[in-house]
């Protein structure tokens, strides 16, 4: 067994530098690497390029890095619900590259899987396809999209073991598995870290080979963005 455990978030983020490109898992505030984000804020790492489906809200998630002006560029599919983000984008302080959600996921998976690029129909004929190669297959038009290149991927899982194997819960899975192994170093934070052998190999969502460092985070806030309920009858 190759051990991937590190003792703390400080050790897990060793090597992060200004100007780097980071992938961050999560959809909205669901399944975001809360501990890694807090540590990036504490370290004051700046000029970051973030690959993340969303940009958090004003006072949580990536919004915390935006508040401190640590982000230079965001690559996302949807960036609503964040006033500070909108302000920085409209004033030109923040560079934004909007990418269709499926393309964003696939650009991660391509990086993980060793594909330099792929063709997708998403965005053909729109401004997303401007300057990109297009090609017809079986009478339909496709756009060539390239794999991401990133220095670190920060992902959040429910359970993990010493070997770096990961299991996710519910829709907190989202982009996290696609980002594992898609950057030079993948850092996984988990709610529960268990010894090797404690997880059933049949139930592993991401094999440990895609993860370089794993640690347990405590007291996850897991903020709900749109609490929606129905009344009991």
């Amino acid at each position, binding site marked *: 067994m190759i051990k991937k455990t590190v003792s703390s978030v400080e050790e897990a983020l060793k090597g992060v530098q200004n100007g780097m490109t980071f992938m961050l898992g999560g959809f909205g505030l*669901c399944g975001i690497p809360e501990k890694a984000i807090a540590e990036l804020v504490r370290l004051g790492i700046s000029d970051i390029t973030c690959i993340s489906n969303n940009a958090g809200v004003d006072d949580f998630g990536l919004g915390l890095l935006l508040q401190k002006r640590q982000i230079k560029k965001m690559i996302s599919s949807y960036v609503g619900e964040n006033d500070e983000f909108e302000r920085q984008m409209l004033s030109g302080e923040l560079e934004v590259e*909007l990418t269709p959600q499926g393309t964003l996921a696939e650009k991660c998976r391509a990086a993980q899987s060793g594909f330099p690029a792929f063709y997708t129909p998403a965005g053909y*004929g729109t401004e997303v396809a401007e300057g990109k190669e297009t090609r017809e297959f079986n009478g339909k038009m496709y756009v060539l999209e390239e794999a991401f290149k990133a220095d670190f991927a920060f992902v959040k899982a429910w359970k993990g073991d010493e070997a770096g194997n990961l299991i996710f819960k519910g829709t907190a899975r989202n982009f996290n*598995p696609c980002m594992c192994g898609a950057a030079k170093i993948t850092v996984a934070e988990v709610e529960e870290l268990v010894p090797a052998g404690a997880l059933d190999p049949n139930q592993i969502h991401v094999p440990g080979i895609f993860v370089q460092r794993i640690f347990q985070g405590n007291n996850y806030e897991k903020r709900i963005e*749109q609490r929606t309920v129905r009344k009991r009858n």
Partner: protein
Amino acid sequence: MLDKNGIAKRIAQEVKDGYYVNLGIGIPTLVANFVRDDISVEFQSENGVLGMGPFPFEGDEDADVINAGKQTITTLPGASFFDSATSFSMIRGQHVDLTILGAMEVAENGDIANWKIPGKMVKGMGGAMDLVASAEHIIVAMMHTNRSGQSKLLKKCSLPLTGVQCVKKIVTNLAVLEVGPKGFVLLERAPGVSVEEIKDATEGNLIVNGEIPEMRID
């Protein structure tokens, strides 16, 4: 004239037995409330769940179980969770049968714009570009005109496009229309709405063939 729930009710009639359906944010989300309960349908949300159920009871909400609108949800028996790449394999690979989404503008050739108003609003396309580029059946749910009374059914979209020549059907507060080779084909009128009113509210080419029936909504 229909309200939002009326539009959702009419669209629910288009959902067929055995369909996997992706619902966009807004009016499309309401469609789930009106699908007949004697047919089998599964709702997919692109953040990674198939087999979505109703909103949870107060106190049962789970931060780890949400839909693409970031609302807390529940799952039904037979549901599954998956990652974002798998989710869009279902969409791009045309395993999802029907996509229902909102729009700011639709053109008479089936072009759709719904993600950006230059200089004013840039929230992003989310999964909409992937959905409209791949779905076999796309239904647009929207008001026929915008807040200032201008038609949203146009000769040509003025806003940045989400997808080209992809919309097949549109259900508005005034009408059900199909995108044909020569423009919007009027299929049904909303209760109490005349063909003239629909013509006035449609900037793109409106094709009226014979008598246009009124929608049947229970």
